[in-house]
């Protein structure tokens, strides 16, 4: 595994006093407030939370796509000012370039860096080999299954040797079996590369299974509700998901998120009620039914 860059001393993410608000006609809407998170070099950290809590917003700010309204995001002490190849990103929608073959997709970051063609072709082949995709290097993404597409997405993000890998619900669109395989592959790559990972998901099992630490966010406006270390030993196996330790963690996280989801939905329900739509609920509040 000597051919892979190993950045043990790099990839420290710090998010301090972070808040982010969107401008709307009714005034600013707070998406995330008063948030502090960090990822130590080589650590695998997940963010979970109810939908719409701003976990993707937070990740996009670390990637450099969104500017914090207050606070600061740094990687290895350097302030994040915009997207860069230092922070690789994997998107839920795969986001492969349909007009590039699998290999050209993987080569893209190296091409942007100005690496000569023959060299980047070789590098891309090596990486695709590690992901078991060398037979598909000349295929266009359209022809690949969801799992393969996302493997290409991960390999492409890792090709430039970033300090940090950011993943935004990367396996959300995959079926359950493929998702388990993908989690295994991601874990393998992470352990080989010793890269820092920030992983956003709404799947609690996935977060526990993969992470060293899990942040749980509150309903909108999102902030950190709890930080849960995952002391499960590695390597982790599927069978662990039945262990009492895993289940205890799962129960804990589940109740945290349930609380927040109800809060979020409670807000929506009262909004609906104000618009006179409670008739459709036969006079019952959805909170009662739940």
């Amino acid at each position, binding site marked *: *595994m000597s051919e892979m860059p190993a950045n043990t001393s790099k990839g420290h993410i710090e998010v301090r006093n972070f808040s982010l608000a969107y401008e709307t006609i009714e005034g600013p809407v707070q998406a995330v407030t008063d948030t502090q998170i960090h990822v130590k070099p080589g650590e695998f950290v997940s963010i979970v939370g109810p939908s719409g809590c701003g976990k993707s917003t937070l990740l996009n700010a670390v*990637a*450099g*796509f969104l500017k914090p309204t207050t606070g600061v995001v740094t990687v290895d002490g350097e302030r994040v000012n*915009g*997207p*860069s*190849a230092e*922070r*690789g*990103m994997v*998107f839920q*929608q795969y*986001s*492969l*370039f*349909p*007009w*590039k*073959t699998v290999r050209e997709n993987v080569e*893209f*970051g190296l091409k*942007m*860096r100005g690496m000569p063609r023959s060299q980047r072709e070789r590098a891309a082949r090596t990486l695709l080999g*590690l*992901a*078991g*995709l*060398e*037979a*598909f290097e000349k295929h*266009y993404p*359209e022809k690949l*299954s969801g*799992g*393969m597409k996302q493997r290409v997405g991960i390999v*492409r*993000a890792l090709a*430039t040797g970033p300090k940090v890998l950011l993943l935004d619900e990367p396996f959300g669109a995959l079926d359950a079996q*493929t998702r388990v*395989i993908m989690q*295994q*592959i991601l*874990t*393998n790559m992470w*352990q*080989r590369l010793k890269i820092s990972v920030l992983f956003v998901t709404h799947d609690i099992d996935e977060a526990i299974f993969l992470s060293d630490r899990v942040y749980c966010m509150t309903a909108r406006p999102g902030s950190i509700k709890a930080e849960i270390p995952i002391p499960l030993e*590695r*390597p982790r196996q599927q069978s662990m998901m039945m262990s009492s330790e895993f289940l205890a963690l799962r129960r804990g996280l589940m109740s945290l998120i349930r609380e927040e989801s109800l809060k979020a939905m409670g807000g929506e329900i009262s909004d609906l009620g104000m618009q006179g739509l409670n008739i459709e609920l036969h006079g019952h509040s959805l909170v009662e039914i739940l």
Partner: protein
Amino acid sequence: MSSPALARHPEDSMPATAVAEAGSAPAVTPPAPPVSFGTLALRWYRLNRAGLRATAIGIISLLAFLLVWHLLTTYRVVFFVRFTNVPSPLAVYASFTKAMHDPKFLMHILLSCRRIFIGFSLAAIIGVPLGLIMGRFKLVHEIIFPVAEVLRPIPAIAWVPMAIMLWPTNEQSIVFITFLGSFFPILVNTLHGMSLVDPVLVRAAQCLGARERSIFREVYFPASLPHIFTGLTVGMGVAWVSLIAAEMISGQYGIGYFTWEAYSLVQYADIALGMIAIGVLGLGSSLLIRGAGQLVMPWRST
């Protein structure tokens, strides 16, 4: 490597999953034994059955069209429309064979093709980059779009008097009208393609270190290509419409002029010949564009 995960399954962990997922991937199937020509032909037939069927029906339908035309003209049918003076297919064929040996007819066709080539190429060379730039830079869009929107609904044929005033020669004004006809469909479709570029792909490129110029070349341009080619196809169609109209009004040569002249000279078979020539030329040019599209966008052909 100290990781126990890798120690447990040393090399095979990822390729193994790949095989499991890929199923009957080309990489894992053993090399097939050589097959006979007969089997290959049979397989080809099975795979292309739908296409063969469509071709067969198409040929039959064209023949039926000719037959109906033949019958209508032979019996000089008058039923709301009058076929009394309409030339029969055989008469048109006779005038076609005569025209093929007439250098003047070929010159008409070549001249029309030249006008299309120049007018359409100019429209593409200006329309596509302008659309790309308007799609990327808001200010350019804000400046040019209102003017384009006012000029766009004016049919190219309405430009004929203006074109004659604007350009010193007839030839130039005809090319100008051809250009105008194809310019707006090309511009509008390029713009549309730019507006549909998936922002996630742009973000993906940024995360991989792409700067503005690379994003333009590597993301916006290829992502818009399908719509650019739609614009080129539509533009080519409108170019022919505009050209024929311009030639009929102000031309001295060209296939549109030929058709109109045939009417004035009471050469009825030549009218139909001119029309068919226009149809075939229009079809040929849009096939050329479709072919170019498949060459430029290999990821879209199956």
